């Protein structure tokens, strides 16, 4: 006999939800038969606010799009502005930007380690990785002056040069983290519980992934080789040697494996960047920010974040303020359209594991 569906409200305040949003699910027994996402708890009108800020002031808002990994958004904005204005960026600034972006990628993945395991009840992993992430935040603090909101990559280059002895500190931290990744493997990837809870769960088939507009590690977890760093290289990624891993399974496990390998690639990239870092200017000075007008036109720039592609589209009417900005993050496709379909047929206990594996970031949906 068919059981009557029960409605469950997961969120907007729920430890398993990566931010303030709600998933309304109908379950029969333990199985989800229908899922609807509800957003709107976090809308801060970033895009509208940018219109009443000048081109420089806008930049300080951007890190709020995604707290765990703000730098790719700053990077997209900076490059869009540079593209529109035709502003050259010094070579050293490009290397520093890559360094920051990769450090941010690592920090974001380490937070994900915590989230993914926490959603399965494996809390030790989160305490380790979040504790180790602090060493990256220490680096950020020394480099940018902020631990979480860096506001460091801005149009024309970066805000400050590397502090004295920063390179060696980065390398030291990398050595330490590389060693720790082995411990993570033992605790997480070798763990039978983790394997059993993730393998075959939340499967995104290859063809469906394209249909749903999936990007980033999620897409690569479904066996499609796609990465903006390779496909549309920006800054100095084309001068660096690294690989973009893919996995065929399309389930949480595959996505986790992709991330596991990417964090190692990030360490590899950072070491190369430190090795190749040229000397020289780190900033191509913008004019007086109060009167800094961009030429009429529009520009789009995109960056590979841990969630996938994050793109910034800016429109200028030739004045000192943006006419319109539009931000497109991966979370919109992952968190709404994909999640609703993906949850159907899954176990109710896997909701937050699936959500975590997609890298959903609600502020990115509501901007």
């Amino acid at each position, binding site marked *: 006999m068919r059981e009557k569906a029960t409605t469950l409200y997961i969120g907007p305040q729920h430890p398993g939800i990566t931010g303030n949003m709600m998933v309304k699910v109908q379950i029969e027994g333990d199985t989800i038969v229908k899922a609807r996402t509800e957003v709107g708890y976090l809308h801060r009108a970033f895009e509208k606010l940018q219109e009443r*800020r000048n081109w*420089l*002031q*806008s930049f*300080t*808002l951007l890190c709020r799009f995604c707290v765990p990994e703000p730098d790719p958004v700053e990077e997209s904005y900076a490059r869009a502005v540079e593209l529109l204005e035709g502003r050259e960026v010094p070579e050293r600034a490009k290397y520093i930007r890559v360094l920051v972006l990769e450090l941010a990628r690592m920090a974001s993945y380490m937070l994900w380690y915590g989230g993914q395991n926490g959603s399965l009840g494996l809390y*030790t992993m989160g*305490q380790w990785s979040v*504790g*180790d992430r*602090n060493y990256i935040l*220490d680096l950020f*603090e*020394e*480099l*940018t*002056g*902020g631990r979480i*909101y860096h*506001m460091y990559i801005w149009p024309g280059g970066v*805000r*400050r040069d590397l*502090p004295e002895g920063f390179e060696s500190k980065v390398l030291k931290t990398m050595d330490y983290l590389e060693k720790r990744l082995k*411990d993570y493997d*033992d*605790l*997480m990837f*070798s*763990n*039978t*519980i983790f*394997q059993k809870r993730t393998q075959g769960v939340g499967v995104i088939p290859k063809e469906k992934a394209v249909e749903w507009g999936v990007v980033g590690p999620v897409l690569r977890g479904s066996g499609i080789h796609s990465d903006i760093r390779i496909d549309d290289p920006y800054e100095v990624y084309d001068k660096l040697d690294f690989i973009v891993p893919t996995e065929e399974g399309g389930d949480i496990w595959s996505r986790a494996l992709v991330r596991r390998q990417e964090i190692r690639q990030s360490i590899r990239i950072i070491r190369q960047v430190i090795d190749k870092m040229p000397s020289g200017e780190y*900033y191509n*000075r*913008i*004019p*007086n*920010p*109060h*009167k*800094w*007008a961009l030429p009429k036109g529009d520009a789009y720039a995109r960056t590979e974040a841990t969630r996938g592609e994050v793109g910034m589209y800016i429109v200028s009417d030739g004045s000192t303020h943006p006419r319109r900005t539009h931000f497109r993050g991966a979370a919109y496709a992952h968190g709404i359209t994909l999640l609703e379909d993906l949850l159907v047929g899954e176990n109710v206990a896997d909701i937050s594991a699936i959500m975590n594996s997609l890298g959903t970031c609600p502020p990115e949906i509501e901007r």
Partner: protein
Amino acid sequence: MSFFDLEGTLKPLTALKQFGKKPHTIPFANLKHEAADRYRGFHYNDLDECIGCGNCSTICQNEAIDMINLEGVEGTKGDSGLRPRVDNGRCCWCALCVEVCPTGSLSLTKDYLYVSEDPDSFLWTPGKDNPNGNEHISFHSTKEVSLNVYDRVPMRELEGSERVKSFAEVVLGYNEAEARAEASRCLSCGICTEVCPDHMHIPEYINAIAAGNDADSLRIIYDNNPLPEMCGKVCTRRCEDVCAIAHRGDPIAIRWLKRYATETAVSSEITHEIVNPEIREPNGKTVGIVGAGPSGLTAAYYLALRGYDVTIYEANAKAGGATMYGIPKYRLPIESLDKQIEYIQSIGVKIKFNTKVGKDISFKEIYDKFDAVFMGVGFPKAWSLGIDGEDAKGSMKAVDYLYMINSGERVEIGDKVVVVGGGNVAIDAARVSRRFGADVTILYRRRVQDMPADWEEIEGAEDEGVKIIPQGIPVAIHKDDNGRVKSIEYLKAKMVPDDKGGRPRPVAIEGSNTILEATSVMAAIGQMGDYSFLEEEFLERIKIERGRFVVNEQQQTGDPKVFAGGDAVNRTADAISAIADGFRACKAIDKMLSVKKEKKD
């Protein structure tokens, strides 16, 4: 995979090897984290360095910074007297305020923890309320990393050797691209407007230039200055001395930007077209003005706009006063002045040239004929040196010399000219004499850095080959047998600090007499008024103290119907102060006459 996976069960247990190790994470209560050297914590402001320009408040995108009055901080020239107060509940620690602070007084500290239940306690005045920070210890913006543009767009000028060949204008002016670039450096803080005697709308017209709207800029300028091109060329520009950017770099070239905006209107007709002044219907009131100098012309222009019938009486053949007859043409070409005066005439101001009040028409006559009278008579007479031999042929006053040269007369100066004095008149006389091929020496009793002349003028004179002998006090002019100047004798001076705290005084060194050969000597040590045109009855009512008319803050003299302005009133004795006087007098006259009119009705 079997149901029981041995490796998958045992491997996670390796985590036990961490047991007993020192934890990475620190409980909040034990947190004693020393922040990094660049940390963006709470604000700190050096209250003495801060000038209250409000740039931090403008750039703040959270509106977290208010500019407030602070006890113990007084506003002065170049300091608004306001200081930033930060709402730490709104601040996002982006530190843009630090990046745009022109003086570098603002920084962020390493303090980052503050807990309180009282929301009001989150309002901090940096520099006053900081518990620990009293110096720049963390995120700080040096001149090198600051977002402000500290280097001025250089002005193109004729070469020194080229200049002395003619009276061609030395300064070539900005072209469009240069003007836009220079204007875009401005922070629009408005510190300058307070210092400008006329309170011109400086940030507004510079903004218009930066935005590429020259016509708007000209309209804004004409709002309270009818001789802007003259000011754009020769203003004493005290605004630039206090420019916020000047604290760490070159001030905005406010004068040259005004010049650029006014030069876009190449004729008086085009000026009229752009400014498109609103002239009110004639109101039947009349105002008489003595002297067509900057103050008289200003009062006339704005009174005419307000519907008054204005007549100016000018002793000379041309209007402009000291700007026409005192300033050399390489600084202010005659066509430029003519253009501005033609425009003033075009809106209905009548100027009676070659009419000297006191000779061609009596002051009494003017007084009786008009509803109000404005006197902008200037300082036409020069002080004499008061030394022996000043009656020699070739000994003259620099003002008279400039007057004659500007009137197109020839003056015999010989080949060795000595100018005594250190003001702008001295430099003008020296540079004019250089253009007639003479070797010119300036003799000044104080040091070069004490010279009241514009530093750009001093540099210009030196570029043209003028020698400056500082710390020299003239004692006698020696004549040859024909009664011509042969040489000038002076004493060397040493500088003695002033007990009263004034600038150091020069004291002659006994026996240090030095003879300097000269064919002519020009005295440029100051000027005074000539009030002989005033009849006895007016002299009684219109008070004169220390050689200047006594006026109230509305430029009104002892006689309610008579107003005065310009050099004969204010001690600063420059064109922009005269313009300010004229503008103030215009408003006062307008107020006085319209009140009367209402009473009659």
